[in-house]
């Protein structure tokens, strides 16, 4: 059973990791804990639903599904569109709420505003799509048996694969492209970056786009392997923060590793503690890491 718990942990950790990337960056660069970030996962998942319906109205190849998977080209395209849609939402929020507050009132007010924004985003989902759970596909997948008596769904194999691809792509972006390198500079020291001529505003736009896209992909993958419901993101707040803080804010690998640790510890914890205490596990991790290593695993101590 321990192998099954490990497999489950890695799979749920992958979704947390995708969501935590954006949270980690915004926390570092904008210096605020964005409690509405998890709602971007919800919006990513639900907006993909609209695009799925749109594409499937064309029929043809959009009605196909790939091999053992529950989805076809329609969902993949919809996921890309959802990234764009979610990025637009994030940029609008930045432009009209967070950026203005950051200039006018300081970054702690932004934390509080993010509570309000989260409330609005979550209940708009209820108003638009209703509170019933929704599935991209009503088909129930059965797990394939791996060596060691571990069972995973085909969709989850895809989930893991896609997460790896996203992380590698981001890695290349951050190390090879001019924008990516500048982004790392801003993460390490915004003032220094600004002084050396980096257009910080443009970089921050990129941060939101990347963060929102990661959240959207995470949301869609979550919707694909579990279900869509309005509290999808809300239930992920603590795991996301735990992952971001564990890994060290502003670090891509930190967020990914943090996500995996959170997923693993949540799933393994039920072997020792009652399942009813499981939601507290990410928090205990946060507390431990903040106490012993406040800068996180890959983080750099602020100067």
């Amino acid at each position: 059973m321990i192998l099954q718990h490990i497999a489950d942990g890695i799979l749920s950790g992958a979704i947390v990791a995708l969501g935590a990337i954006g949270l980690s960056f915004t926390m570092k660069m904008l210096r605020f804990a964005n409690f509405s970030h998890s709602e971007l996962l919800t919006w990513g998942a639900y907006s993909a639903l609209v695009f799925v319906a749109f594409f499937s109205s064309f029929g043809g190849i959009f009605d196909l599904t790939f091999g053992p998977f529950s989805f076809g080209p329609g969902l993949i395209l919809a996921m890309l569109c959802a990234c764009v849609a979610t990025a637009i939402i994030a940029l609008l929020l930045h432009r009209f709420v967070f950026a203005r507050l950051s200039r006018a009132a300081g970054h702690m007010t932004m934390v509080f505003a993010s509570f309000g924004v989260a409330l609005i985003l979550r209940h708009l989902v209820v108003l638009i799509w209703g509170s019933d759970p929704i599935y991209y596909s009503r088909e129930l997948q059965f797990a394939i048996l791996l060596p060691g008596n571990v069972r995973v769904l085909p969709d989850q194999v895809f989930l893991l694969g896609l997460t790896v691809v996203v992380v590698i792509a981001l890695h290349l972006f951050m190390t090879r492209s001019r924008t990516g390198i500048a982004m790392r500079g801003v993460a390490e020291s915004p003032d220094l970056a600004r002084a050396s001529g980096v257009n910080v505003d443009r970089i921050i736009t990129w941060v939101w786009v990347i963060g929102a896209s990661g959240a959207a992909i995470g949301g869609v993958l979550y919707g694909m392997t579990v279900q869509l419901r309005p509290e999808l993101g809300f239930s992920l707040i603590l795991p996301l923060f735990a992952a971001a803080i564990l890994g060290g804010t502003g670090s891509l690998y930190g967020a990914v590793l943090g996500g995996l640790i959170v997923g693993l510890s949540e799933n393994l914890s039920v072997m020792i503690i009652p399942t009813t205490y499981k939601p507290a596990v990410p928090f205990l991790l946060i507390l431990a890491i903040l106490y012993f290593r406040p800068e996180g695993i890959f983080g750099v101590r602020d100067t």
Partner: protein
Amino acid sequence: MIGLVSYIVFFLILSLIFGVAVLGLNLQWGFTGLFNAGVAGFSAIGAYTMAILTGPARDAVFGGFELPFVVGLIGAMIASGIGAVFVGLATLKLRHEYLAVATFGIAVTIQLVCLNWEYLTGGTLGLIGIPNPSKAWVDGPLAQNTLYLLVVLVVVGLSFAALERIVKSPWGRMLKAIREDDVAAASLGKSPERVRLEAFVLGCMLMGLSGALYVSFIGYVSPWDFLPILTFQIWTMLIVGGSANNRGALLGALIVWGVWTMSGFVISRVVPAEIQAQGGAMQAVLIGLILVAMLLIRPRGLIGEELHVSRHARS
């Protein structure tokens, strides 16, 4: 008219009970700049302490000491205070955004303990039969509620007066100095860490007091009373009323709780019955919008700090 009077008394009791917690948060955030996202957790500690100290004995559940109301109030404050000392020692050195996440997590954990530690908290069933002192003195719901309102008013009055004295004292000026500039404050000769901890603990004691007043009034306590939404409500009250102003804190409690309940009242009348089910979501969106708009348009709240230089001027 008796119905309206009766409702207003009831409304005032609830909003002033919230007001006590808002005063506590104001000390932490408004005056000292500590971001406590775990208000619900400290309220829960006070509430359960009250229930254990004053409630009737139950089989297989700890407590039920049937102690007097006042003992319950004091016990609740002490218990929340002790909880706050531990939490404060572990987290107050953190940067603000981390403090927000850590305290949020503490509230979630406290709620889980309330939910699952049956021997102490009655678990999912909660604790019933917690006495309301006003019922021993007078008969009839309106008279009882009016008496309880007086009790709450006395508590609010004492808390308010004490806080006003405190923030005008040298210690209170120290709080603001810390809020504005940690390093400079340290040069005044007092340890900012210690003062921050003191402010945090005092604020949390008021939150516990608020929880205790609530369970005595309602007569029942359960884990479902302390979900993160409670923290959000208390914060909204402070921001709307105006932080760093105790009058603002109380005003915010009255106004926000008024809008919260009045919007439900209006929705039940204006929205056709068939789509009433959507009313709750509309209400939540409305509250979120009010809050964000308030932050954008009037970040200092309805009555903000009575100072020339506020931290909002800096960034």
